[in-house]
């Protein structure tokens, strides 16, 4: 089993976002970066698949500058075997997928896992882009997954009001949703071993970014709301305001 897990190096969720000097990206100073939370489910899925088969190799893939090695090592500390670092500044989802697809094309992946979305650009598109670029099936937002020995699989994806079962066959790209598994915490031994695991650097061939940020701004600050009152006594006034002022009832 040749398993790849695409991970993203993202600002911690609690980071205060400030627009940087270029007016198009965030100011990175003082920002702590983490392994994208959804990608933890993807790494866990890769490790569990390898364990279930009793053979195979899990490779963590990340596109980015030098700093992303830190995030690749987090995946290695969880138990992945090696890293593939595509040394390039990601600018949009399309270009990032292109760089990954180019790097994986000759590596005959059996399965590529990724997270349902990265929590920086929230694009929800990597699995579909990669699937189409690699010309293999893709399933997004999988909250359950069963892979048979012959490589056929059924995934349950979350949809409005319930779930949808998708069947397909490996090789495939699958994006992970919360609920797929419980990601393991790296143990001290894993963290020590991760330092010695190999990370291959690749320079991508020139590829195209297709989406351009014109400007980044902070959302308009909402005026702090009106405290209508305290306790049940305020209920009548609230209902009046919802009807007459907000016009939502």
């Amino acid at each position, binding site marked *: 089993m040749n398993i790849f897990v695409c991970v993203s190096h993202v600002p911690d969720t609690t980071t205060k976002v400030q627009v940087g000097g270029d007016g198009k990206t965030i100011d990175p100073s003082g920002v702590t970066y983490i392994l994208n939370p959804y990608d933890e489910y993807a790494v866990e899925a890769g490790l569990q698949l390898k364990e279930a088969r009793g053979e195979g190799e899990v490779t963590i893939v990340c596109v980015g500058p030098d700093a992303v090695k830190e995030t690749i090592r987090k995946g290695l500390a969880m138990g992945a075997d090696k890293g593939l670092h595509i040394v390039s500044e990601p600018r949009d989802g399309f270009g990032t997928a292109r760089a990954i697809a180019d790097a994986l094309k000759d590596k005959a992946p059996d399965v590529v896992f990724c997270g349902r979305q990265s929590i920086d650009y*929230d694009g929800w598109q990597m699995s579909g882009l990669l699937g189409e670029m690699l010309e293999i099936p893709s399933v997004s937002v999988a909250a359950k997954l069963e892979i048979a020995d012959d490589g056929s699989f059924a995934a349950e994806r979350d949809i409005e009001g319930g779930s949808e079962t998708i069947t397909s066959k490996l090789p495939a790209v699958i994006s992970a949703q919360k609920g797929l598994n419980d990601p393991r915490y790296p143990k001290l031994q894993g963290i020590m071993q991760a330092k010695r695991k190999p990370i291959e650097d690749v320079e991508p061939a020139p590829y195209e970014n297709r989406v351009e940020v014109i400007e980044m701004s902070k959302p308009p600050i909402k005026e702090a709301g009106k405290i209508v009152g305290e306790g049940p006594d305020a209920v009548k006034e609230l209902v009046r305001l919802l009807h007459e002022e907000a016009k939502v009832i």
Partner: protein
Amino acid sequence: MSILVITETRDGQVKKAGYEAIRAAAKVAGEMGTEVTAVLFGADDAAAKGMGGYGAAKTVHVTDDRLALYANSAYAKTIRQIAEKEGADVVMMPATALGKDLAPRLAVQMDGAIAPDVTDLVVESGDIHAVRPVYAGKALIKIKINSVKKIFTLRPNVFSAGTASGDEAAVEAFAPELTDDDFATKSTGTSIASGKLDVTEAVNIVSGGRGLQGAENWNLVEDLASVLGAATGASRAVVDAGWRPHAEQVGQTGKTVSPNLYVALGISGAIQHLAGMSSSKCIVAVNKDKDAPIFQVADYGIVGDVFDVVPALTEELKTFLA
């Protein structure tokens, strides 16, 4: 050169998010001197004509039983064939579970790119610029797609569908050319909780947090929701505690919602929760802590105990709405 809009049906019914996308696209098309062609999978002829009421000049009605259930490659290939036939460079669709899965495969098929989960569209210097939240809503970006083919997915409930006019769209049946390979990935069916509104589709939402203190108190949330015809939501703390299913979780690791009215009961308003609901049109919070961050985003707040305030609110609304 029309703008294609992909609509979505469930059990033969067109979803509201599809009408919203037609209306939003019609506005853009008007400014660019073109028209909207809707694409409808399944449903009936009346639904195809009905797209006209929201601003579509024409509906391409896909009539192929193999597409009754979703298959991402087959859908993408079908839409590509329609776009080629119509000479359409721009495709819009709702950012639903289906739209988000389909758009990337379509983008590669059409050799274009996606602006995902857009909350505003503006035509500037003859080009479509899209606005979308990033970093869990902590920033907004305005973007443009530089490839010729452009795909936009639109966040549900943000663009208004308005009311349907009596106009009817011209209808053209379309039979795609597909092979078995296009069905390498297919849906074998859906399981939908009956009688339950999903938070992403609801006009009103009542959500509960840890302040409710336990699953056994959820009747407070449900009673209020039923009076308002609302879906029920929950914070992550509640979902992690097993009081509510993950499908109800609102926030960064849950669902993104944009209802007209969002009522937050006993929810602190952590940044990850706000990420999922701050684009709601009107936010009401009930919390006993007057300094809870939820009051920073709420339009109206009541400081108080949910166990006192919520039953009173439910009663008052019952009388008011009767």
